């Protein structure tokens, strides 16, 4: 079973990102969970969301405490305690597995982020993608969730870019205009192509 934790700030779309990831995996035949952890609901407040993905039905209904995948939609969350009203108020690396994959939204290099995450010399993999810039370029708004999903597709075998884009088209065409859909699809693609590993 794969376990994913998303970190962001309210309005950055991490709850939706978890939802899209869950739906995409479900469409490829997996059992999934996608759920948010709401703290105080204010714009800018730290928010977490989770995914579980498995070949078997998922029975546990607790928070994800040992994620193998950590996606950080806002680099300012690194190194601070994320007291959000819930119990897991530790930092973004709390509980992550030794070999966890970290994907950080930042224009900086993976090496700089590895240091910032205090993961120097550790087996964890650190990727970066400038998802904020991509979202501004492609969608015209600072919502880094879809480029991060594209980056996740590139960095891991969890989903393919094609499945991700297909799912988004099928599920969101009713809700959003064609321009918004296309912008997000472009953003996914740019996230996929723009990821750096280090």
């Amino acid at each position: 079973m794969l376990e994913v934790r998303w970190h962001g700030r309210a309005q950055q779309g991490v709850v939706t990102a978890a939802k899209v990831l869950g739906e995409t995996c479900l469409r490829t035949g997996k059992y999934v969970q996608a759920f948010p952890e709401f703290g105080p609901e204010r714009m800018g407040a730290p928010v977490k969301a989770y995914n579980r993905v498995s070949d078997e039905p998922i029975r546990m209904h607790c928070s994800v405490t040992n994620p193998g995948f950590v996606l950080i939609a806002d680099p300012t969350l690194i190194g601070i305690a994320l007291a959000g009203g819930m119990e897991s108020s530790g930092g973004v690396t709390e509980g992550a597995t030794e070999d966890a994959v970290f994907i950080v939204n930042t224009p900086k290099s993976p090496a700089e982020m590895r240091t910032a995450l205090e993961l120097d010399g550790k087996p964890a993999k650190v990727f970066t993608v400038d998802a904020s810039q991509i979202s501004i370029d492609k969608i015209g708004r600072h919502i880094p969730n879809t480029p991060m999903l594209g980056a996740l597709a590139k960095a891991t075998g969890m989903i393919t870019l094609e499945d991700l884009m297909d799912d988004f088209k099928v599920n969101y065409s009713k809700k959003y205009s064609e321009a918004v859909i296309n912008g997000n699809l472009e953003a996914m693609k740019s996230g996929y192509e723009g990821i750096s590993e280090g």
Partner: protein
Amino acid sequence: MATEKSNEMQGLTGNSAVALAMKQINPDVCPAYPITPSTAIIETFSSYVADGEVDTELITVESEHSAMSASIGAAAAGARVMTATSSQGLALMWEMLYIASGLRLPIVLTNVNRALAAPINIHCDHSDSMGARDSGWVQLYSETVQESYDNVFMAVRIAEKVRLPVMVCLDGFITSHAIENMATISDANVQDFVGEYTPETSLLKDMENPISIGAMTLPDYYMTFKKQQSEAMAEAKDVVEEVSAEFAQKFGREYGLLDSYELEDADVAIVIFNSATGTTKVAVDELRKEGFKVGVLRIRLFRPLPHAEIAAALKGLKAVACLDRADSFNDFGGPLFNEVRSSIYDLEDRPKVISRIYGLGGRDYKVEDAKSVFEELLKVVETGTVEEMTKYITI
């Protein structure tokens, strides 16, 4: 948001699954006053109303007390009525809950379980529906998104058969806001299953022969009506079994009054409700691999209480922990503890029973928390003594 998949699995949250079930049932009337974490049920359902996808009269009222009052009025008039609420909303409905059941009106209410203030909290526990357990409503508890969806259909059938209101409970946020795989039923099959609602009696049924509902009764008659209500509640247990069996036969998903997991040869077990059951099952699997004979009993139907079935399920065990996500503030454990303990009293070799309160106000309950309760139980068996009958855990 529905996701189609080859084997017809969809990804829905608990709230969207309940709203979809309501849409497929197409009730006559839905009086509602949205409240976290059940807001999305009414929000989504109201969009179905606005889009003309249902014929339902959606009544936006000024409080939950009014929502239940309007539900009662509509149900008395002969309508199929559904609504949803949580926490303080259910608390504000209190007075009217008893009237709905006393008037024998088959209203279906989805309660998304949330803690009661104070301190104010929006997250899951069962203090809301546990408080309403003696209000004369049938109570069904749901472990997953799938079961929440399925229970709504069964609730309609149960309510209309025994002429009692039914409350379908699911965990706030944990189930209401989580997307899980679930299979939906076609609209035609839903309509076939729930059927047309044709009450024998209603205010609007025969205008030539008017009836009165809600008349006062004095000591000479009141008690007889309560006895009837009590007997209807007892009958509801068989009806829940019948309706669940028909549902399983038609749609392939089996639900009992209880859900026993690895209990047959178990020495110790946890008795629990709702979403935490799955987490406990994972702990059972892990401990079974280490050779410990542990199991889980989930209570799906809490009102009426399947006491004989609980006794049969726990017969032969040595120690049992009842996990309550609500406190009775009685210095004697939670409601589940008291009722399960009472249910097994007449067993010859009854297990020792302890109360553990968990998960209040959304406190996480993890696999290791379940394991630590099992460890306590194994220690009770080993030593033959209970050191702490009641305790809060994860604190």
